[in-house]
């Protein structure tokens, strides 16, 4: 059971790392918004589930709920600001 939690944490870390690589390698800002969302949703979810299995508790659901609600709001505000600054 603990090995399953470790494997899930490693998979989540891989997704977060891939998102950061995309943040560095993409060309324009509007392309750069896409990759980090992978680490913010799937990577976060996998690591939260790994922590739930590891501790055998449910209170990590709070982190999952908070991140799932707040991440899209932040990105929408940021893209609206970027569009306004470019005048379109």
């Amino acid at each position, binding site marked *: 059971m603990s090995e399953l939690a470790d*494997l899930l*944490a*490693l998979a989540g870390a*891989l997704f*977060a790392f891939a998102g950061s690589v995309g*943040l560095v390698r993409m060309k324009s800002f509007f392309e750069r918004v896409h990759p*980090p969302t992978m*680490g913010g949703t799937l990577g976060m979810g996998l690591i939260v589930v790994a922590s739930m299995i590891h501790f055998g508790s449910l209170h990590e659901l709070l982190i999952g709920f908070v991140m799932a609600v707040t991440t899209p709001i932040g990105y929408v505000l940021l893209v609206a600001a970027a569009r*306004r600054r470019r005048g379109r």
Partner: protein
Amino acid sequence: MMLVAAQVLLGAALLLCVWRAGRGPRAEDRVLALDTLYVNAMLLVLTFGMRQGSSLYFEAALVIGLLGFVATAALAKFLLRGEVIE
């Protein structure tokens, strides 16, 4: 061992975010890099808590998640309007 590998990957992700925050051609890129930075740091704290076997780190991760969203929203609002509270 796999948890150590996960921590190394998350640390490398933090370094990539720091590079983008320093390089980023415009202010939006820096704010986006800071947002990704706090998400990765929160995941790193969670894996650190799993390694230590203490649930104290869970509360630290929750606080990082909440305050990071507030910081991103305030910075985006500043870029949008030129002031945070109008």
